[in-house]
Every structure is written in structure tokens, then in C-alpha cells.
């Protein structure tokens, strides 16, 4: 794979604000001007109690929603003013999503689910893409389950498929929303180990939203969000896995 600049900036937030029901009496600002930066090598956890604005922030970073004010740079590109089509394309090519409820498409096999982002952008997969998909599934330990449908896999296996899918486009940023929220501890450890590996091997920044302190302790950096403000941003020596 192409050499990536280790210190390249992947994500930068500048005075990012988000309010709902803007202009109405019920207007509520959820995020109050966030500044934040994430580099290629970062492996960060975003923690906070529910209601702190975590999910809102994640949706903004994932280009699923637009901020009310401020700017969000993805690979140094300002994204706020982009039209929906450009944002969709940028989302597909630079961001990999892993959700709490694995969210695979039931009608497709594990391998097809992994290839889905590529197929959405480029159409029918060629030999190279099929090979990449297979090797990703092999990396997450599912080489025997490639042709299985999601409902024939366990929760942990489905989440590993979702991780492989998040990586098929070689994203610059991997966004994970409570990725281990409904997994047992063994599966949690496996999925976390995968994130670690891909962070190093693929040079892809990881931002992990969690309120599981055991998980955030293992990250290099912990960003705490409270009432829509970043209250601490700590670089820590990750505990040994």
C-alpha cells in the first residue's frame, strides 16, 4: 500500500458548534465550539456520559450531519460548505464506520458486505477487490465464513465483518460508535486488537466512542466530552494489551 505521511492531519475541528431547532424558542446548543485535531497515527477514545454530545459529534465528523457553526476539515479539506453529493463521496472514500449494532446488510454475504462500500462507489468488484475483501476477512479471522449471511454469524463475528467492511476503502479515519457495546469480553478484546492492528498497519486514524473505561484505558489518547465541551484531552501510555 502507498506510504502515508505518519503525521498527516486527518481531522481538524475549528470552533465547531451544533444546535437543534435553530431560530426557534426551543433552540438548544449541543456542542459549544469544539477545537480538536487528529493525526494519522492517533488512536483516540472519545468518552463522555450519555447526553454529553458524543453521538452528535460523531455524526458531524462522519459527515452524516452539518455543524451550525465552525468548520470541520477532513484531510485538510473544509467540508461544511460542500454539497451533499461531494460529502457522500468523501464519506465513502475516507471514513470507515463501525456501529454498535454491527449493521450488516442481511441480503448480502459476509464478503459482499465487506465489499459494499467499494461496490457503491465503483460497481462490480474486480479480481483485485475480491482478493482484498477476502484478505481482510481472513485478517479478522473469518476466512471460513465468507459466504455466510449475517444472520448465520455470531454477534462478535458480525462485528468483525463490520470492521473489515470499514477498512475496504482504506479509509483515513475509522469511526467506531460503541463498537463493543453488545459483545462479550472475548469478542471485545478481539475487535479492539483489530483496531490496533489496522491503526498501525494501514496508518488509519481511529476514533472510538465508548463509555467503557476498560476500553478507553487501552487507547493512546482520551478525549472527554462533557455538556458539549471538551474538558480534557489526555495522551496516555496505553496499557499493555
Amino acid at each position: 500500500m502507498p506510504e502515508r505521511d505518519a503525521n498527516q492531519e486527518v481531522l481538524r475541528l475549528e470552533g465547531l458548534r451544533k444546535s437543534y431547532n435553530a431560530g426557534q424558542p426551543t433552540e438548544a446548543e449541543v456542542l459549544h465550539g469544539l477545537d480538536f485535531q487528529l493525526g494519522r497515527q492517533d488512536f483516540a477514545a472519545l468518552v463522555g456520559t450519555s447526553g454529553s454530545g458524543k453521538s452528535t459529534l460523531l455524526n458531524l465528523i462522519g459527515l452524516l450531519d452539518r455543524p451550525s457553526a465552525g468548520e470541520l476539515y477532513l484531510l485538510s479539506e473544509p467540508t461544511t460548505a460542500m454539497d451533499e453529493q461531494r460529502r457522500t463521496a468523501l464519506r465513502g472514500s475516507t471514513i470507515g464506520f463501525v456501529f454498535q449494532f454491527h449493521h450488516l446488510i442481511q441480503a448480502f454475504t459476509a464478503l459482499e458486505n465487506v465489499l459494499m462500500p467499494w461496490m457503491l462507489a465503483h460497481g462490480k468488484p474486480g479480481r483485485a477487490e475480491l482478493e482484498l475483501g477476502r484478505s481482510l476477512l481472513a485478517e479478522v479471522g473469518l476466512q471460513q465464513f465468507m459466504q455466510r449471511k449475517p444472520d448465520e454469524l455470531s454477534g462478535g463475528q458480525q462485528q468483525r465483518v463490520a470492521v473489515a467492511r470499514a477498512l475496504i476503502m482504506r479509509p483515513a479515519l475509522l469511526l467506531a460508535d460503541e463498537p463493543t457495546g453488545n459483545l462479550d469480553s472475548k469478542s471485545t478484546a478481539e475487535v479492539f486488537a483489530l483496531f490496533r492492528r489496522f491503526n498501525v498497519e494501514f496508518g488509519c486514524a481511529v476514533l472510538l466512542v465508548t463509555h467503557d473505561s476498560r476500553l478507553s484505558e487501552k487507547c493512546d489518547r482520551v478525549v472527554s466530552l462533557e455538556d458539549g465541551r471538551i474538558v480534557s484531552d489526555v495522551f496516555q501510555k496505553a496499557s499493555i494489551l
Partner: protein
Amino acid sequence: MWIEWTIAVRFLREGRTQSALIVIGIAVGVAVIVFLTALIMGLQSNIIQRTLGTQAHIKISAPDEVNLRLPSPEETVQLVLETKRAQRLRSINNWQQVRDLLDTLPEVTAVSPVISGPAFARRGEALASVALIGIDSERYRRIIPIQDNIVYGQFRVGADDAVIGNRLATDLGLRVGDKLRLDAGQGRDGVVNVAGIFELGVRDLDARQVYIDLKQAQSLLDLPGAATLIDITVGDIFRAEQVADRLGRLTGLKVESWMETNAQLMNALRSQSLSTQMISGFVALSVALGIASVLSVSVVQRTREIGILRAMGTSRRQMLIVFLIQGALFGLAGSLIGGISGCALVWAFNTFGPRLFFIPVDLLLLLFASALATLTGVISAAIPARSAAGLDPVEAIRHA
């Protein structure tokens, strides 16, 4: 388009029962439309054929005689008390030239000059009023195939031979070979042999028409060398009206097409077609609503998957296309099955039905029905497709 197509097909296959039910629903609708349309078209062409089997498509006669009026001078008022003129039996002027002219027209397939007038048929004490029709049998048989409707004897006109209707034969107790006296009034009468007896199935014609040779009719009706009518058939019967218009301007004579003479019939046929179209329209509407509702339910069921697909970089347009394709596939599959079922129904009707008439199945009708059903599918998918494309990925993913 490949990925949109693939997703659409997979979605349909996954919701197999749902897909199967709606396809069956569409198929029933299309089958009804195909069968009904074929049935009505068969019925109508049968009626038209029967009607036109006993009459010419276009009749040309001499223009009606009208009173000529002096033009009134400027600034005067003309009060007119007019007695309409009686329309006496008259020949078409220069009918030979008109006939030759008509023979050259491409849209005209047969031309037959006829002389027709009233007479009495007498046998012994029995008397019946008849219509004498003097024909050139070679030409006339191309207008009305009387030779195919002969029940006794043969179709032979000329040299004192006449062909009469079955009803008249019964009324006067005539058989083939019997003599019949024809009295055209004012002392002109003649005796003819009954050479053939026909039955057209129209009571009035079978009771009144007497076919004799043109020359004999001319002398009986005291119009030597005359023809009072020119009968015409055309290639396309539904263009008879236009052809008649053209001939009217061309010849300056009175021209009437079968559509004018059978205005009632045409009206009935038109109403019938209209009611068929309305039934088809309502069936199509309910099919469309069925497709729309199934896809709307599917959008709700797949909200989360749609959100995931959107988060993975599916554009709104792609999402729209996925659901439009599903609608189109519903329409296409349903119309194929429905078309085949419709044909099967038609076949069953032709084979086991009352066999009053034969229904032809038009391949074009099937193609048209399929295209229409597919289009209906796409159109009815538009609303659910728009709602799928409009889903906010964030909301959709949160959707439990």
C-alpha cells in the same frame, strides 16, 4: 447501475413472500386487463364483421334533389314556404366514369354499381314487397359474399335468373327452380326463375332482397342504362369515414360510409370500449397502489439498512434508483406472468367457452401491457423511493 440493480434484486429476494404476493397481485390485474381487452376487441371485431358482411362499406348515390331558390336582392327579406321535393329514383350521372375512377383508387378494394328500387313479388295470391337489386354479379360478390351464404341452389344472376332470401322463399312458398313474378308498378313486370336462396342472418334482408341482373332491373324500374348506387369496400374499414369524405369531394355525389349509416352501432362500440378502458384503468390503479404500499412497507422495514448504506457512501440518487428498480421488476414480473395467464384465459375461452366468436390475442397488446405495467411499477415506486432517498442516515441508523 450494477450495484443498484444488485441491491434491488437482493432486497426483493430477501422479502420473498412479500415479493411473491405482490407479483401475483399484479399478475392477476394484468391478466384481467389482457383478457378483458382481448375479449372486447374480439367481440367488437366480430360484430363489425357481421354488420359489414351484409352491407357495403361506402355507398354512393345521386345527390338529393332540392328546390332551387332565387337569390333575394340586397336589403330584402325573403319569406319561404317550401314543399320538399320527393326523391324519385334516379340514376347517378356518368356512373360508368365514376366507377372507372373509383377502380383506380388504392384505398378502394371493390366497386360495384347497383340499381335498386321497390317492387312486389307475386306468386299466385301471395304478395310481398321486395327490394329489387340489379347487380353485376362478378363485381357484387366482392362487396357482399352472397355466394357463401347460399342455402339452396347457387348464386347465379342473369338471363331471368334471380337469387332471393330464405325468408321470402318461405313466405311465398318458393323453391329453387320455381317461377316468381316481379311487379315494379306502372305495368312493368317480369317473370324470373329462382336460381338460389340465400340466408344472411338479417331478417329484413332475407325477407326483402331480390337479386336480379342489372339490365333486367334497369328495364323493370324503367331506368335504362342507369345505376342508382355504387357500392364500395375499402381496405381499412375504420378509415371508411375519411375515404367517404374524400370521395364526396372527388365526385360531388352523395357518399355515406358504414360508420354514418350505423351511427348507433358505432356509439355502442365506443361506449363499450370506454367502459373497458375504465375497468382497465381502475385495475391498473389498484395494482399501482399495491406496488406503492408494498414498497413503502419495505422502506420502513429496511430503514436501518438504508441508513447504513447511506453512511457507507450510497448517494440519494442511488437509493432512489434501488427502489425504482424494485418497482419496475414488480411490474415486469407481474405483467409477464399476468400476460401468460391472460393468454391462457383467452385460450380457455376459445376452447371451452360458448364459442360464439373467436378471440384473437394480439402480441402487441401483450408487449404494450408489459411496458405499461413496468412503467406503472416505476411510477408507483416513486413515492417510497423518494422517502427512502430522503431518509436521514443518522435517524435511520438509530431506528431500532
